[in-house]
């Protein structure tokens, strides 16, 4: 173990301790905002894996979150299934549905894929709204809370664990052979197939894994809020996820985390109406795409690089600077 690893380990422990103690430093409303941020960290990170790293620009990610939520919620309400078991069912169903949608859209080019996934999401929303006997439609379905509590501090720890699990899993996946296969498929599917990558299998795999992650987030979130509504499958929700990922930085591991927390916390700090907020964030995305396509993380990194140039730390060996895989 060299000194670099030791200092990295130290940094991670400090960060983790900070995250664990955070709920004690802030009030319950801020805790709630953090829970929502962490929920979006899971969604944004997993969508980034699908769209950014595998090149499958799906517009149904929010629908899989809702699918997980509704599966678990309806099992609890109509069949009396214990909440944790229902969540598990939600994750499995969302993953299976993702696998199915992946299989269905296998042959599609980028634009067809976006259109087909978007149509899938819209239809799911319409079906949930129409089947009001089971889903209570637009009125919303009341579901029990996980562990019978809506205390944001408890759920903060749950979502912290989920977000960490997701991000660590995605990081490990991207650094493994599978990650290289996914990126190869994104960059040139035919070339990837030529080198012996089973593109069909890995595309379906990417869809299944990311949809299961979204379903997990959605199921836990439903049992935190205690209310499910088809509004969560509106396209605005998908746009929010995209905004978060782009603001943070597409095709970076830290980008979606930074973007989700930045967008969610800034929304609360600004205390503007939802519409004004969305106008501002949409503008921010357009400006970033036009001028700084790497997102905020690329911006921060370039500023850091410039700062480093002014300080004596210029002689840092290249291996010290952790490179982000893109």
């Amino acid at each position, binding site marked *: 173990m060299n000194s670099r690893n030791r200092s990295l380990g130290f940094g991670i422990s400090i960060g983790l301790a900070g995250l664990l103690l955070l709920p004690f430093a802030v009030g319950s409303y801020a805790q709630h905002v953090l829970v929502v941020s962490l929920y979006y960290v899971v969604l944004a990170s997993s969508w980034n894996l699908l769209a950014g790293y595998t090149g499958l*620009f799906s517009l149904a990610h929010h629908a899989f979150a809702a699918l997980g939520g509704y599966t678990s919620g309806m099992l609890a309400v109509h069949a009396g299934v214990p909440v944790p078991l229902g969540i598990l069912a939600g994750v499995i169903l969302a993953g299976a549905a993702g696998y199915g949608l992946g299989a269905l859209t296998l042959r599609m080019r980028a634009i067809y894929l976006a*259109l087909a996934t978007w*149509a899938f999401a819209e239809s799911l929303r319409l079906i949930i709204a*129409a089947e009001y006997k089971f889903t209570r439609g637009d009125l919303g379905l009341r579901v029990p809370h996980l562990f019978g509590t809506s205390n944001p501090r408890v759920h903060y720890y749950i979502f912290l664990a989920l977000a960490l699990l997701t991000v660590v899993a995605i990081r490990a996946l991207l650094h493994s052979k599978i990650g290289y296969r996914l990126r190869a498929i994104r960059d040139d599917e035919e070339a990837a197939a030529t080198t012996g990558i089973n593109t069909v299998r890995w595309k379906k795999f990417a869809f299944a894994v990311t949809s299961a992650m979204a379903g997990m987030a959605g199921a836990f979130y439903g049992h935190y809020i205690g209310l499910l509504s088809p509004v969560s499958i509106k396209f605005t929700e998908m*746009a929010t996820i995209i905004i978060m990922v782009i603001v943070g930085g597409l095709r970076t591991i830290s980008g979606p985390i930074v973007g989700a927390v930045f967008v969610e916390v800034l929304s609360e700090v600004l205390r503007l109406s939802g*519409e004004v907020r969305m106008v501002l964030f949409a503008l921010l995305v*357009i400006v970033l*795409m036009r001028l700084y396509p790497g997102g905020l993380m690329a911006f921060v990194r370039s500023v850091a690089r410039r700062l480093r140039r002014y300080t004596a730390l210029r002689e840092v060996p290249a291996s010290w600077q952790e490179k982000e895989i893109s």
Partner: protein
Amino acid sequence: MDNLNLIAQYVLSGLVIGVIYALMAVGITFIYSIMKMINWSMGEFFMIGSYLQFFLIMGLLGPGRWYLAIPLSMLAVGVLGVFLQRLLLRPMFVGTLERRDEYATIVTISLSVFFRNLAVVVFGPYQFSPPDYFRPVQLGPLPLNGSRFVAFIGSALLLALFYLGVKRTWLGRALQGAAQNRLGVQTAGIDLQRLDQIAFGIGVALAAATGALLAPILLVHPENGAIATVKGFEIIVIGGLGSITGSIIAGLLLGLVESLGTIVLSPAYRDVYGFALLIAILVLRPWGLFGERERVA
């Protein structure tokens, strides 16, 4: 006999709505055929068109002169489209932008979020309802609301005009050429950047026309473009991206399927039938009914 009459009514009303859907779809597919991108903010140009129409007929022109307001709304939205194309979408073709699809999708989705929320900020979440354009008419066995009749005739007229424009004028031929081979058109000395702007302008003007025509039916509010966009996207996938004939036929087909699905199955799922049709087409013919098969280079 009564049953037959009923079916005839549903078929006819399906065709009427199909023509209106087709106008929106043709705008989307036209932009795609030239710029090879999907404009996800089409519904917002529809919405802007309907707001312009509403304020023009309620303020400047008076409700009687809705037929003057429609071309004006189209023109204004077309100019806005040209401006936005120049500002935001030109970098797709100038310079070295990687992953154009992704850029175009993200920028136009953001534009859609931007305009939709801006409309709420500026005009509030209210619904404005313009007066009917025309008195109710009887179309064969089908009694038709006046506005729907106008929307039907207007859409058919605009589709015919558009078709003639593309087939008969110099600009139309240039656009057809650009749709077939962007490089080839450039070697013929045609300014492709200008063509892109014109195509985008015309495409969003068609969306504005749909919005203006449907204003008394779908009402004027920030999200009124959503339904038309859903149908438009379904139609272009069914008909095949980039095919104008395909869009028109798929529009009629979608109108029929929805209308007949309503009587044969259930009216609650009216908006899901289009998706079922889309899935069926995608599984059997992923390039759409009239689209070109992807050529692998």
